[in-house]
């Protein structure tokens, strides 16, 4: 029977986000969440009473709030409504989107609001991520989500100069995109001619992973409204249709790349992409998609993951970067929003990918709108020890 046809279609009819920043002392958690909720309602022209159900998500230990949806009801607007709280890891935002899609498609709820947020300045982020590991073993060793293993791999495969340049070029392109996004947390105004200098001078974190190449720690929230086809058509001029989503997790392991070609490691990104593309009949994803909002925690990973997600071979992924095809006006724009390296409120980050992809499809991304029609969008989430969620959005209901 495999994957079945959706019970009914689901459209995104509103998105909202806060400014992402390391300085949100001006709001507490529910207040910050409410900014995004209000923005999504305004975007959709709905009122809180139009929402049937709310899905809330983040990670408790980043802010040290137990069952945070209880307090956050002050900002989520869930009072008197159906409410779920579903989380995964860094993927949680993408999971919220999947959950909202499922809840609407099931016929149980017509209009669902998904809310992802994190106030990372209220806790210690790297410490929080390190707490993810088994307390008896790996928690004593690891350094949050930081690893130089991907940099090492790319350097080994393509040589130091080409690898470092590709990673830094990706980084500068993301900064150029972030400069166009008023919500972005970090937008430095980096120039391409600074690359050599940055490669040389940006402080190192782990191995060849440099501070400039790693994502930020942000405060921020994102809210997205999903509605059934019938409601979406009634309530919105331009709903963005959620075609499909797929989640692939891994066991808790920190061996996320192989040391020996005889023993290949299955990459969750590749696996998720294969499953999603196969069941939706997509043979050439680079050709098919008009934008990819990728959860890119560091430029090294981003460069490497392009190959995984697009099922590319050899150095095709490097060429996409080197030829600047991933820029906003390129063949396959990656993260016109500036991506995760620019803004990373973890519980919202993966939902922001979906929200930004939806804005691109609608043509409402403002200064960072891709300068040609966007019909097919892909959004990814990343978390845990190499977990993946992929979501496909469409402009037309014609698949």
């Amino acid at each position, binding site marked *: 029977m495999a994957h079945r046809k959706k019970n009914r279609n689901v459209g995104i009819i509103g998105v909202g986000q806060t400014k992402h920043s390391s300085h949100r002392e001006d709001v507490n958690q529910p207040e910050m969440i409410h900014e995004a909720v209000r923005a999504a309602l305004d975007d959709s022209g709905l009122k809180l009473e139009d929402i049937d159900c709310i899905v809330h998500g983040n990670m408790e230990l980043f802010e040290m709030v137990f069952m945070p949806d209880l307090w956050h009801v002050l900002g989520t607007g869930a009072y008197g409504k159906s409410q779920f709280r579903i989380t995964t890891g860094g993927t949680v935002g993408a999971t919220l989107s999947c959950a909202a899609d*499922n809840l609407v498609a099931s016929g149980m709820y017509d209009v669902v609001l998904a809310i992802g947020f994190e106030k990372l300045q209220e806790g210690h982020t790297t410490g929080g991520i390190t707490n993810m590991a088994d307390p008896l073993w790996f928690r004593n060793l690891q350094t949050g989500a930081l690893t130089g293993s991907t940099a090492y791999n790319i350097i080994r495969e393509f040589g130091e100069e080409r690898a470092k340049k590709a990673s830094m070029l990706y980084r500068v392109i993301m900064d150029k995109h972030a400069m166009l996004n008023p919500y972005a947390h970090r937008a430095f105004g980096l120039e391409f001619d600074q690359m050599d200098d940055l490669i040389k001078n940006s402080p190192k974190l782990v191995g060849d992973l440099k501070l400039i190449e790693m994502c930020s720690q942000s405060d921020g929230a994102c809210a997205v409204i999903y509605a059934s086809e019938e409601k979406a058509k009634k309530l919105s001029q331009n709903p963005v249709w959620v075609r499909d989503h797929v989640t692939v997790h891994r066991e808790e392991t920190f061996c996320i790349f192989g040391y020996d070609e005889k023993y290949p490691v299955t990459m969750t990104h590749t696996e998720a992409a294969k499953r999603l593309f196969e069941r939706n009949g997509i043979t050439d994803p680079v050709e098919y998609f008009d934008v990819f909002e990728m959860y890119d925690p560091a430029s090294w990973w981003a460069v490497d993951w392009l190959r995984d997600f697009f099922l590319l071979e050899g150095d095709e992924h490097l060429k996409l970067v080197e030829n600047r095809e991933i820029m906003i006006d390129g063949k396959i724009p990656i993260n016109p929003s500036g991506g995760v390296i620019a803004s990373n409120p973890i519980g919202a980050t993966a939902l922001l990918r979906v929200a930004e992809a939806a804005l691109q499809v609608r043509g409402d991304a403002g200064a960072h709108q891709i300068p040609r029609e966007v019909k097919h969008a892909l959004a990814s989430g990343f978390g845990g020890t190499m977990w993946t969620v992929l979501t496909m959005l469409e402009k037309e209901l014609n698949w």
Partner: protein
Amino acid sequence: MGKRVAICAVSQIKNDGDYWYLRFQNMLLPCLEAILEQTGVTFDLDKGIRDIITCSDDVYDARTISNNGVTDVVGAHLRGEEKMAQEAINGLGYAMASILSGHDDVVLFMGHCKETQTESRLMNTNLAFDPFYSRPLGLDFINANAFQAREYQDKSGLTDEHLAKIVVRSRENAKKNPYARENELVTVQDVMKSSMIADPIRELHLYPVTDWAFGMLLCCEERAYEFTDNPVWITGFGNCMDSYFLGDRDLTSNFSLKRAAQRAYEMAGIKDPKKDFDVVELMDSFAYQLPLWAEGVGIVDEGKGAEWIDGKGADDQNVNLSGGMLNGNPIILGGVARALECVLQLRGEAGKSQVKGAKRALAHGCYGAAGQHQAVVVLEK
């Protein structure tokens, strides 16, 4: 809607006061194996389990992304996995949605909680409150509930003796349940003499610290009989969130529970909850909550909880024959444990507690101070 989702199998380990010798991975693995054995389900990408729903809590596990630690023992390697980060009974609603949406036809649902791992569940539940006002005041899920208990006593005439009777009954019922936590039988006098924790809540009025894990296999209607001859159907689900500050709420009005129940009843076509259920399982973390929630789900008239206890209404209506949460399930799993007991009843596998010919059951779960968030599930044979 008329659509329904099957529960094809359930599994659990015994509720225990201290599984100090087991990691939670060790607690989940037998639950997984039991499901696979009962149903023959596989993890085949076409025909088997593609997506898993888990339930656990980061604060109780003291792990960021608590589900990260269980991916192997719930079979989630290279499969989808999503965690209910709230009372697990809501996972049944979400699993229902995942299946009815068409996204999944088979969903494995597993959860664990080891309350014994933490130094103090009061310190944990204190963290549920905002850090500026309620948390420094020292609120936790016991003293916050004491406000509700006191108000409900005033409203319904529930006495210390009523509360004691509820505890005595819970422990007696639990003795018939092989998976229940092993507790001493107590007398009304024992309960009334137990120490006062947060007036009017006494030590024996609250559920004991417990470790537990469970598993369930859910499936779409079309394929249910591939995995069992005896499916139990989820026909209704509803949940609801109340406001946060205790002072903003009418603590005995059952605002969110009534709405949750109404949503579930509407979906399942329940007209008269007093008559329509053969078995009812309520998540009574505290003794006073049994009659209060009974009012909320509409099997007892408003404010008549004390009379209901006097008249042995709970026995007549087959409420919490399992012993209930009061006998011991861990936090976040008390509601799903209720649903699991209902499944056993409807399958005719409830042993000494079996209600003959049980056809329809109600399971309830909640979390938060004074039951801020409420959920109700209707299950049918």
